[in-house]
């Protein structure tokens, strides 16, 4: 990363916190720290103790008990285990699942896979502000509904879904509730002791932890039952076999412990920076914010810049690391399906940028990023026939 580059893509991934790295290093050593946590000897026991301490830290951030945390390779695996595991345990034939059009692909593609196995899936539509209402979910319930899967915070817009309102309503109807909390953990208070979610997916690398490690919260009381998706040595209470990656797990534990300490202050600071960025860019005419301003997680700002073609805007802003709604920025080469679900046309979706801020974002970076965006959007509009008006 060069000095000139401004990183505003914390929702994609976060740098490893130096304290997390420090905590991980002993577990990558050749003298000790290499024991298999499943082994019953001194190095194995030491590794197991470290894994269990990390489990307790992850649980503490979300108001869960340590034994309710199952380690996975990341949130994609956690989402797969939750959704496929729940349906397989209950028997998928004739079952109904409710999700939404703005979920992460790890949920959407898992649901689409289930459809090929005889499961009926309802994909709820968000409103223009990106919100899924609790009433929409309740109206979509059928006698055959076994699972609702919704994200706590949308990764593109930052909009917060009404999870705390919805969870008790689903509990009283006996419907399992899975929540992808990847963008919520460490950003918003999560208290699963008070919020009866059954299954909740977590990732370390969005919270200044390492890539390659995540977790699924699986409620014990009442017990959420899952069919394992990874068979083998019976690790993780039989729900996820495979030798535990001690260094990764220790990293996730330290990252979540740090998040618990800094979350409130981080949220206040990052929210202020996000609004500073928006205010600074607001001198540009014809720009629009995507996502309900009253229901936003601290770290995300999504803006459409009409008249500035998305691919060119991205190319001219090569000194900013931001996410583009442009087709050319994604592996699938389709304009953002989330923004299209909010009713934006392809062109508007493509001319949108997601700025996501984090622990090391400074006011100076925000001001410089805003000026760069103003300069390049103005340049592209000036270059366009009729100022970019369609």
């Amino acid at each position, binding site marked *: 990363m060069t000095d000139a580059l401004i990183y505003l893509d914390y929702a994609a991934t976060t740098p490893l916190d130096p304290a997390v790295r420090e905590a991980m290093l002993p577990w990558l050593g050749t003298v000790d720290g290499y024991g298999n946590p499943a082994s019953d000897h001194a190095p194995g026991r030491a590794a197991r103790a470290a894994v269990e301490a990390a489990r307790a830290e992850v649980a503490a951030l979300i108001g869960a008990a340590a034994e309710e945390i199952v380690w996975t390779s990341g949130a994609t695996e956690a989402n797969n285990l939750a959704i496929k595991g729940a349906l397989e345990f209950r028997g998928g034939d004739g079952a109904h699942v409710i999700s939404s059009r703005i979920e992460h692909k790890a949920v959407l593609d898992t649901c689409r896979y289930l459809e090929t196995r005889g499961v009926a899936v309802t994909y709820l539509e968000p409103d223009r502000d990106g919100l899924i209402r609790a009433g929409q979910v309740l109206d979509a319930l059928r006698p055959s509904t076994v699972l609702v899967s919704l994200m706590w915070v949308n990764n593109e817009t930052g909009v917060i879904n009404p999870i705390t309102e919805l969870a008790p309503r689903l509990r009283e109807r006996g419907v399992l509730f899975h929540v992808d909390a990847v963008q919520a953990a460490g950003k918003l208070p999560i208290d699963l002791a008070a919020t009866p979610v059954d299954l909740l997916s977590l990732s370390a690398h969005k919270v200044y932890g390492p890539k390659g490690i995540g977790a699924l919260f699986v409620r014990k009381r009442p017990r959420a039952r899952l069919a394992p998706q990874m068979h083998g040595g019976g690790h993780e209470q039989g729900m996820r076999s495979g030798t535990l990656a001690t260094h990764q797990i220790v990293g996730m534990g330290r990252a979540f412990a740090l998040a618990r300490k800094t979350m409130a202050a981080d949220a206040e600071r990052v929210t202020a920076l996000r609004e500073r960025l928006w205010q600074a860019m607001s001198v540009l005419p014809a720009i629009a914010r995507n996502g309900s301003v009253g229901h936003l997680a601290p770290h995300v700002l999504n803006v459409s810049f009409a*008249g500035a*073609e998305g691919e060119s805007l991205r*190319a*001219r802003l*090569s000194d900013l690391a931001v996410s583009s709604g442009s087709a050319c920025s994604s592996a699938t080469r389709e304009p953002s399906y989330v923004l299209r679900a909010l009713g934006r046309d392809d062109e508007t979706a493509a001319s949108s940028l997601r700025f996501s801020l984090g622990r090391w974002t400074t006011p100076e970076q925000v001001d410089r990023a805003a000026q760069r965006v103003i300069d390049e959007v103005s340049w592209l509009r000036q*270059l*366009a*026939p009729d100022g970019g008006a369609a």
Partner: protein
Amino acid sequence: MNRENVFGYPEPVWARFEAPARAGELMAAADVVVVEAGSPAARGRLRLYAQLAGGRVVDVRFQAYGCPVTIAVGQWVAEQLVGADPRVHRLTAADLRQALEITDDKAHCALMGEDLVLALVKRISG
């Protein structure tokens, strides 16, 4: 501002996209013609302002809405037209693709450039 070609556009495209010397417009005048071409699929648009003298282009500017290749195509066409008679010096999509090293997935941008030149020839030929 020195931008980096992070996304790996062909060098002839990047140089023109980064600093398109002929971007802009010419004041409306009797000897200035304005032609346009578009690519509906890619939502690209090129507009050319050409000042003519005896069928020759004596000054030219362009405007563009589209991807970096579209902008580079506008600039390249403008460069080529200065001092030329477009009826004689016919520019084609193949010329554009070769000069700017345009890949298959951006072939429509080269066609837009050819359409722009054809529109100009048609206007001059009247």
